[in-house]
């Protein structure tokens, strides 16, 4: 299917919004404006923007800690993203969870825990419910290549394969599972080969090509909605910075980092749109100004939001026992 001009502009907006928000969050953390830590995904934006753009509100996403771009593109308001990082009262989690553990029910963004690959299992459970309910919603499940070595990820993909659930499993292969290189985690060049074991297609694509990520995911989503089962999409990409802001990432060579920075997905897509005449310099400037304003408003919202009060520590432990 041809991608419309509006879609191209939408992808451009989210790609830049996610990049600018991520870089800004890193600075905010370094400035001590919020505490704990921060997990940057700068460099990987095309994977999540491409795979979440165009999803419906009713579709769910199973995310981990590095999916800022997924939650923004899926439609979590930026002010709540920021309030989550600041652990304020207006955060959807009321300050209970953990940095970068975003969740937003109206858009099907499932608040994660920190155990790796678990959100894939939960989102697959949502897809089981969609099948029982005879709904054509889709579950998109995000992990890095490291999580594909976890047994629970296998259980989820196996079950999804058996029951042909409406799942799209997106593996962001960024070559490093925190400090462990992919060659020590996966005995394959392409993680997508794992899909053969579950009886559904596995694809490997360039994860720094947002248009390709979008088209590939949308095809998998359409397949899932038609009841034709899951797809595994491996998107090869790279995280520019450490696992979190307290990780200097000195396990990698500078050459490797520079190699991937030259493959930055943001200017790459911008060049394509300029060449095609979809956008021009003034459109770019207007977009960046809009984004700057939106980020400022979100930070302002978070910083003005009160801290939770001590008595709230026991709120939301239980629903009434009945």
């Amino acid at each position, binding site marked *: 299917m041809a991608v419309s001009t509006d879609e191209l502009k939408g992808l451009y907006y989210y790609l830049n919004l996610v990049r600018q928000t991520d870089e800004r969050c890193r600075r905010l953390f370094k400035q001590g404006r919020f505490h704990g830590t921060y997990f940057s995904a700068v460099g990987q934006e095309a994977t999540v923007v491409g795979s979440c753009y165009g999803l419906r509100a009713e579709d769910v996403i199973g995310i981990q800690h590095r999916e800022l771009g997924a939650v923004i593109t899926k439609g979590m308001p930026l002010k709540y993203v920021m309030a989550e990082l600041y652990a304020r009262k207006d955060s959807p989690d009321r300050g209970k969870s953990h940095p970068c553990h975003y969740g937003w029910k109206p858009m099907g963004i499932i608040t994660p825990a920190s155990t790796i690959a678990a959100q894939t299992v939960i989102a*697959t459970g949502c897809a*089981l419910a969609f099948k*029982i309910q005879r709904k054509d919603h889709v*579950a998109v499940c995000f992990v890095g290549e490291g999580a594909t070595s976890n047994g629970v990820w296998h*259980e*989820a993909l196996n079950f999804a394969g058996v029951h042909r659930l409406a799942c799209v499993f997106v593996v962001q292969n960024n070559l490093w599972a925190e400090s462990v290189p992919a060659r020590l985690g996966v005995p394959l060049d392409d993680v997508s080969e794992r899909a053969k074991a579950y009886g559904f297609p596995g694809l490997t694509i360039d994860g720094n090509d947002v248009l390709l990520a979008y088209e590939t995911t949308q095809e998998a989503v359409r397949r899932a909605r038609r009841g034709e089962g899951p797809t595994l999409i491996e998107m090869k990409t790279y995280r520019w910075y450490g696992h979190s802001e307290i990780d200097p990432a000195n396990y990698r060579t500078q050459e490797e980092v520079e190699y991937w920075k030259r493959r930055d997905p943001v200017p790459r897509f911008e060049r394509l749109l300029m060449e095609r005449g979809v956008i021009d310099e003034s459109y770019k400037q207007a977009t960046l100004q809009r984004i700057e304003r939106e980020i400022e408003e979100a930070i302002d919202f978070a910083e003005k939001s009160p801290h939770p009060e001590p008595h709230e520590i026991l709120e939301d*432990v239980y629903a*009434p026992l009945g």
Partner: protein
Amino acid sequence: MRTMETAKTPGAAVGTDVKTVTYIEAITDGLREEMERDERIFLIGEDIAAYGGVFKATKGLYERFGPMRVIDSPISENFLVQGAVGAAIAGLIPSPELQFDDFISLAVDGIVEHAAKMRYRSGGMFTCPMVIRCCYGGAVGGGLFHSQANQSWFMHCPGLVVVTPATPYDAKGLLKSAFRGQNPVLYYEHKRLYRTIKGAVPTHDYTVPLGKAAVVREGRHATVISYALMLHRSLEAAEKLAAEGIEVEVIDLRTLLPYDKETILRSVEKTARAVVVYESSKTMGVGAEIGAMIAEEGFSFLDAPVRRVSPPDAPQEPFAPVLAAAYLPDAARIAQAIRETVAY
């Protein structure tokens, strides 16, 4: 198997509007009735569909409700629970069955990190109404890996409701309450009780509240706090002691988390003596919490130390019959502990 006395449960059915069923029949009936009442409920587990479950707890339900509501799962304990968390988020009320408590360690992430914490971690946005049924317990010759009783692990997990019934009446009533609430419930059913315990159950709809213990025998010399199989053995002990002039009050906890402090403290205030009888190794078991709570909140009531009666600190019930017999407390051991507590 010997037949044990049916515990007298307050509110238990009397009169003509009742039928007598086994503990496992009460569970099967409870599942069927709840599934008829609410079409969001579905079951998923190993061997539970056409086969009816290894103990036949789901017998007939696949035929009645079909493959979309009674689902045979692969051997994937983690998926069973964690996938159920997802299905609950998506609007259904899942009931995963864990075949044996001995396999629950494979599902702990789903139970502890996800089911128990979903409401808290999402600020109340997401709830996780689900009933995890788990078969547990010794005294069936099951050996080290088919006899386990791991309730105390999960008593350390706020957000989770942990129940374990002793009677058919409570088995059905607690199951119904579990399905009608918004909390994740770990519903522990004791395999020794499945077919050894029969009792009267109303033919009409009823529930047993979560979080409430029951005084199942009144007495004034000592309070015994127990649940499930150990409750029946405690009642046997109480019966023996009655002949000796010792009147024992017996409390069935029914819900282990969050448990009913008030009923325990009210009884201990009356009897001044407490014995906790439970089915797991002694250290950090159910008795550790109940005993500590009584010491902390009811110290001035006590005329004797709180006594714990439990299996020894062996990992679980061993296989060899002689070793197995040395594991779970019997009525004689429980009675002796009560005698000593009363004589203190």
